[in-house]
């Protein structure tokens, strides 16, 4: 009987982690775009805070913001900074004309909310370009990262979260709307995939953040 074992990619993940470990904390300002078929929202400003090992907060900078539950608060760092996982090689894949290493991360803890994370890693630059995470509570979502001047710290300039959305319907008796929705609007509502794009304008790295910010 022949046993096939996937190659352990813990070494690669540890290298990516070491790169990320340069950052103890950061604050970033950015613009957030919510693209969900049944939400009409303008672009809003957000502020993001991170502190090692896994404190992360995304807060609106004025106005009302709508975020998919769970997805945005789980960031790459909080997944990678956990040592308790198994990293398996899943081959190579080309994404945006770039060959990337595909690594599957399986948490060892039975009670972890994350069931599986698939990472698409640029091995040369040690950057996670894409991650697909399946959770117990919040379904599956994708994160695609684009890097720029903060690539040296493993910090993206743009993050795109993609997630599945449920149907949304509110009784007309509550909204007191008695008009039928026109066909154009109905067609637009058919999109089932939601996206949240955050484009970061600047990062302040390792300036120190008090833990009270995350409460």
């Amino acid at each position, binding site marked *: 009987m022949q046993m096939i074992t996937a190659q352990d990619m813990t070494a690669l993940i540890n290298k990516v982690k070491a790169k990320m470990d340069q950052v103890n904390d950061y604050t970033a300002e950015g613009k957030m*775009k919510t*693209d*969900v*078929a*049944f*939400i*009409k*929202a*303008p*672009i809003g400003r957000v502020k993001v805070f991170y502190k090692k090992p896994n404190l992360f907060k995304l*807060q*609106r900078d004025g*106005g*009302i*913001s*709508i*975020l*998919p*539950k769970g997805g945005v608060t789980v960031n790459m760092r909080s997944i990678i900074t956990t040592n308790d996982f198994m990293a398996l090689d899943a081959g190579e894949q080309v994404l945006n004309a770039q060959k990337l290493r595909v690594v599957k991360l399986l948490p060892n803890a039975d009670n972890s909310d994350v069931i599986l994370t698939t990472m698409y890693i640029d091995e040369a630059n040690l950057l996670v370009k894409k991650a697909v995470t399946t959770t117990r509570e919040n379904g599956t979502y994708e994160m695609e990262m684009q890097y720029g001047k903060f690539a040296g710290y493993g910090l993206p300039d743009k993050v795109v979260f993609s997630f599945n*959305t*449920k149907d*949304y*319907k*509110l*009784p*007309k008796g*509550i*909204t*007191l*709307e*008695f*008009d*039928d*929705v*026109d066909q154009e*609007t*109905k067609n*637009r*509502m058919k999109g089932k995939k939601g996206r949240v794009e955050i484009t970061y304008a600047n990062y302040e790295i390792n300036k120190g953040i008090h833990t009270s910010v995350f409460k």
Partner: protein
Amino acid sequence: MWTLFQIELYKIFRRPRTYIAFAAITALIGVVQLGLKVDGKEYAEFVMADFNSSFAVDGNILNGYFICYVVLQLLLVHVPLLIALIAADMISGEANMGTLRVLMTKPISRWEFILAKFSASAVYTILLLIWVAIQALLLSMLIFGTDDMFIMKSSYAVVIKADDVFWRYAGAFCFAALAMTTVAALGFLLSLFADNSIGPIVATMSVIIVSTILSTMSIPLFNAIKPYLFTSHMITWKEFFDLKVNDMNEAIPGTIQNPQKLWNSAMVLMAHIIVFVGAAGIIFKRKDVLS
């Protein structure tokens, strides 16, 4: 005619009945504001239960702009009754008191008389809406503060930037003024047919109730007549609170999703006012006021 108009306004605001409407609106809005101030979170959670299962909404949702929207949704269904109290009494009240004959001895044309009376009831309607605006919008802004406006529609949710809201309310109140003036015109027309106020007031409300039911029922038989019922167009003010989106599904500030619908509804309401007041003028010109 200007003097006649001033006299009619004086007569309206001299009657205690006129102030019932202002007091009722103050009480109604006050109750809603109190309720939402105390238990607003529960209300928001109830309305957003479906939405909250997938999304986290961060920010001051229960702000003055949102409260005003809730109040207007509730109130603009009932304000016609308060308008009918005055408008449907304009001619019938005079007939009831026997002053109509005396008025007709004055050197004024019947058309001038009708226009002055209707203009006075239209001013009352507009003042009532200004009072609603002060109470529902300005007072709510003061009590609940301001932020972006988050509205749950039956098929989608809309977020409007705080600095993009106020002009929408200005437009919505102007539109509501047109809608309520239509109610005033109907009440005014019906006031020609009775010698007491109760009949025209009840008749006005009955027409509005029946038309509203026909407007709201999604039955194919009634769908054909819906566009011609003024009650179908009275709720079009909500269009001010819907934005256009671009190809990237980004809401475009400063836009209205369907301005043509607003324009069409405004024209239908305007046409109703002209027909009601015109009919009132023609009927009154031929009316025997000697009896």
